[in-house]
């Protein structure tokens, strides 16, 4: 049930520009959009890293020790550094766009955007602290 | 060189036009008339084709309503979307005698205010009907989804406007026209979706086809391809707006023009009161010689803004350094009971007077202050922002000044034309089957239109009057009978093609716009806010000269087959050049002052318009008799049974 791109009465002389394959490099805002979308790659990579952690823990203390050594190599540190930047970018864009996607109403009045954004950041802070405390508990 | 100069002699034998106003008491006329009308049965409506030219408030409303009733409707717009029509630019609001404020409003009061506001040059019967319908219009618009401002309980909010002492203007922030037009546009789109209306965009009407004395079709030009085409039908509705652009600089959209009504006039439709033009008091002043359009600031601003100029001549101080005692709030001084809400013609004229005294402000001294400092102090900036925020933003966008801090500068500019094609009570022109709606007709505003009445009239015509009266006309005529192969259609097409070819063939040196600008200057100087016999005679000498030069020296570019904006424009300027002359003839013949028509020879000792009801209590309707011939004057006498003729006073 596609509407199709009808251009009737399409005048043969009217000029239609083709979109370049490099359209996303033409303006910074498009590039930023594509970078935002590519954060998902790092999200997925880190999910795989988490899998690896679990696997190593399951194999036993030696495997866990090897994992720690492996994580300390420059390659992994750099990879994690890059991933961290992208994941942060993901978090920030995700929180900032949240009020657009979700309108919160309280007694009929629309909550201002900053309230929605603010509560996202607050939740982020609380959850991060909780994870850190639980994970690093001795 | 051609001339058609002259004041038509007072012709006692001038034919008297009859508007066929139904008999009976005024509050029963429309109801009674509707009952007496013939009806087309719903099953037969499909067989009738109605051509609606224009898709603004009146046109879209008429096309949508007629389509909904089951007629086969074709609607034409020269824009690329019907919603671009200039009705969108109306900001302030729409009047309705709902009396929500319990401030003594009623249908009769709206009727009374409108007749008085029009300086007793409108038809009582029409105006009463308009006031009556104002109630239905609001409900209809609300049902269509117009986002009117609301009060806490969910009822509509309203405010006051010029020329009225009650609060009856309903609004959607500063964009009422836009929202009303969207309402009508949606109704139209809906009918397009249902198949009862066919919409022709980028299609300009260039001629009217009259067969056996009836309007049966139109000739159009496709603006994108140049194709000349014809459409025939059983009735034609013109809803093509006003002709303020004859002044070149006006608040009208750039494309607004008189071509449709002027060509219909040349085919036999009488033109009524062409000299009744409205100069709106609150516009952003002209800022340079290259300006191509003026911008209106809504009259609603006068609710809270105070108009003033310095008392001293040539006072060059910035406004905040002029103490209260050295300011002249001249509207409040001269018209204490209406103050800043005096009607438009009066407010405009007063602004011109103070600027003529060299007390004007801003570049060139052509401006007065509209000051919100008091209102902001009284109500707070946030209230003012809520009420007028988008207008203040627009002002800042155009002038770069923040009107919350410094007073706005405003000056009058051409805005609306009360004149237009003559129509009877049924909105039918002197050509049977030709109906004219909205600003294109002359019907309801007399010599001056009150604020927030244009939207009301356009919608009354489109939603309620035409659907009834067009049906009544069609019920008396069998459907169909002509096609585009009819000799009269072909002849009209050939004439249009010849005109286009002539324009393309001139190949002169001057741009179309330069002619338009020169014509506009002549009209503004001599047939603008104030007129006198000498000036009008001068203009009547100048305009034919300009027309002659146009014919020899205009440069129209390129060819017909494609989008050619200079060709479009040239055709419109040709018509303005002819219409301008008729405006001056009318202004010259009407040796009185009334409403927007201010003849300097006819004023009271304190500078107010001085009517001559003895000689001029009539509608002047001009019949076209050829480019070189003197137009023939017909008169429709005006009788005032309910609102007694009196010198208008807003003091």
């Amino acid at each position, binding site marked *: *049930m*596609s*509407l199709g791109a*009808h*251009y009737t*009465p*399409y*005048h043969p002389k*009217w*000029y239609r*520009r083709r*979109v370049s394959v490099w*359209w996303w490099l033409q*303006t910074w*805002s*498009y590039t930023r*959009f594509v970078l935002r979308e590519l954060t998902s790659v790092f999200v997925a990579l880190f999910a795989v890293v988490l899998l690896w952690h679990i696997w190593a823990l399951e194999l036993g203390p030696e495997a866990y020790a090897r994992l720690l050594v492996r994580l300390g190599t420059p390659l992994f540190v750099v990879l994690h550094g890059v991933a961290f930047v992208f994941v942060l970018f993901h978090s920030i864009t995700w929180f900032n*766009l949240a009020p*657009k*996607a979700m309108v919160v109403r309280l007694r*009929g009045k629309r909550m201002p955007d900053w309230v929605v954004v603010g509560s996202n950041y607050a939740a982020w802070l609380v959850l991060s602290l909780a994870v850190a405390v639980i994970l690093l508990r001795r | 060189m051609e001339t058609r100069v002259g004041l038509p002699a007072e012709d006692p034998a001038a034919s008297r036009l009859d508007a066929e106003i139904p008999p009976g008491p005024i509050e029963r006329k429309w109801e009674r008339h509707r009952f007496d009308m013939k009806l087309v049965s719903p099953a037969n409506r499909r067989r009738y084709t109605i051509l609606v030219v224009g898709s603004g408030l009146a046109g879209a409303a008429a096309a949508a309503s007629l389509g909904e009733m089951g007629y086969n409707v074709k609607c034409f717009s020269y*824009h*690329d*979307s019907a*919603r671009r029509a*200039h009705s*969108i*630019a109306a900001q302030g609001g729409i009047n309705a005698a709902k009396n929500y404020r319990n401030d003594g409003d009623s249908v009769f009061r709206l009727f009374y205010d409108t007749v008085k506001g029009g300086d007793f040059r409108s038809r009582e019967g029409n105006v009463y009907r308009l006031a009556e319908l104002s109630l*239905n219009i609001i409900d209809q618009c*609300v*049902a269509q*989804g117009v*986002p009117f401002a*609301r009060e806490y*309980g969910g009822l*509509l909010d309203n405010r006051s406007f010029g020329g009225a002492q009650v609060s009856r203007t309903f609004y959607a922030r500063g*964009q009422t026209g836009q*929202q009303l037009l969207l309402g009508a546009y*949606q109704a139209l*789109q*809906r009918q*397009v*979706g249902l198949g009862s209306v066919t919409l022709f965009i980028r299609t300009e009407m260039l001629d009217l086809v009259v067969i056996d004395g009836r309007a049966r079709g139109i000739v159009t030009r496709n603006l994108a391809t140049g194709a000349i085409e014809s459409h025939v039908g059983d009735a034609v509705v013109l809803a093509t707006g006003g002709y303020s652009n004859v002044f070149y600089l006006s608040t009208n*959209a*750039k494309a607004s023009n008189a071509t449709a009504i002027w060509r219909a006039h040349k085919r036999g439709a009488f033109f009524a009161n062409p000299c009744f033009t409205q100069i709106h008091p609150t516009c952003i002043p002209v*800022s*340079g010689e*290259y300006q191509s*359009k003026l*911008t*209106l600031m809504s009259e609603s601003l006068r609710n809270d803004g105070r108009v003033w100029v310095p008392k001293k001549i040539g006072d060059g101080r910035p406004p905040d350094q002029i103490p209260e005692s050295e300011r002249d709030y001249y509207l409040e001084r001269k018209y204490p009971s209406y103050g800043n809400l005096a009607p438009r013609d009066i407010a405009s004229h007063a602004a011109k007077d103070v600027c003529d005294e060299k007390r004007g402000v801003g570049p060139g001294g052509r401006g007065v202050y509209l000051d919100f400092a008091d209102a902001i102090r009284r109500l707070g900036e946030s209230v003012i922002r809520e009420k007028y925020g988008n207008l203040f933003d*627009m002002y800042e*966008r*155009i002038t*770069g000044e923040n009107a919350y801090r410094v007073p706005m500068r405003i000056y009058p500019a051409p805005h609306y034309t009360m004149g237009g094609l003559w129509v009877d009570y049924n909105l039918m022109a002197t050509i049977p089957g030709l109906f004219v709606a909205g600003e294109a007709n002359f019907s309801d505003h007399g010599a001056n239109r009150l604020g927030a009445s244009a939207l009301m009239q356009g919608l009354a015509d489109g939603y309620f009057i035409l659907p009834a009266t067009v049906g009544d006309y069609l019920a008396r005529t069998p459907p169909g009978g002509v096609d585009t192969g009819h000799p009269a259609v072909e002849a009209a097409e050939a004439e249009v093609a010849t005109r286009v070819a002539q324009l393309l063939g001139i190949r002169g040196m001057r*741009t179309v*716009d330069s002619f338009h600008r020169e014509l506009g200057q002549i009209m503004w100087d001599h047939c603008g806010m104030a007129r006198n016999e000498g000036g009008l005679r001068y203009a009547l000498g100048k305009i034919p000269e300009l027309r002659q030069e146009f014919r020899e020296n205009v440069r129209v570019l390129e060819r017909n087959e*494609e*989008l050619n904006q*200079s060709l479009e424009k040239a055709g419109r300027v040709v018509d303005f050049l002819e219409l301008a002359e008729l405006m001056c003839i009318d202004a010259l013949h009407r040796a009185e002052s009334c409403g927007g028509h201010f003849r300097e020879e006819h004023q009271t000792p304190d500078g107010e318009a001085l009517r001559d009801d003895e000689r001029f209590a009539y509608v002047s309707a001009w019949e076209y008799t050829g480019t070189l011939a003197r137009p023939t004057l017909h008169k429709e006498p005006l009788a005032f049974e309910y609102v007694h003729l009196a010198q208008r006073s807003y003091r």
Partner: protein
Amino acid sequence: MPATVALAVARYRPEEEPAPTLQTYEVPFREDWVVLDALNYIKDRLDGSLSFRWSCRMGVCGSCGMKVNGTPVLTCAAFLSEHLPGPIRVEPLDYFPVVRDLVVDLSDFMRKLKKVKPWILREEEKPLAEGEYRQTPDQLDAYKQFSMCINCMLCYSACPIYGLEPSFIGPAAIALAQRYNMDSRDQGARERLEILSGYDGIWQCTFVGECTKVCPKNVDPAGAIQQYKLTSAVHWLKTLLPWGAR
């Protein structure tokens, strides 16, 4: 402030050239001039053949949208002074066929707009005699933002998805559908659902967000689309339930 400023204007004369080219004009610089004034100056004094559409010059008719230095704007609101030192590049809106110079053809949008039924739909119309529909300021507030759309097409021109997938209904049409969905007087949300959440509807959108950024009327089409995604997803979940919405 400079005395003059250069404008590089896209010209396309279909009878002469296969693709648009840029032509440079030197116009006087004035503080209070917008790009549209400069174009009018060119048309009036330098080159009468330049074609572009405009109408109201007050930001409501939606005719004069063009790309200025790569960004879609209303040229009646784009001050020259914001784009100094120049040359200021003026081009037609992206993704629509160019008719001539700066004039584009919008038929595609006109056709799509109709599909989302942007008018009040009611199961039963109330007769006029019963008076007006009531609506509280809060109910008005729910859709008011979306009612400001002037169909200027800047959002389409800013949307790469529309460029890549011309069948996409697009930002303005969806925002206008939402304008009616959210109106307390409207009962047509179900009727619009099929087209809005269909193949060419909201799911094409990847939330680039540029439509909202270029909107001169703060309509926020991107928000409208994302909000509708949630509506559509909730509707989908409900259809799973045995007693759910059909």
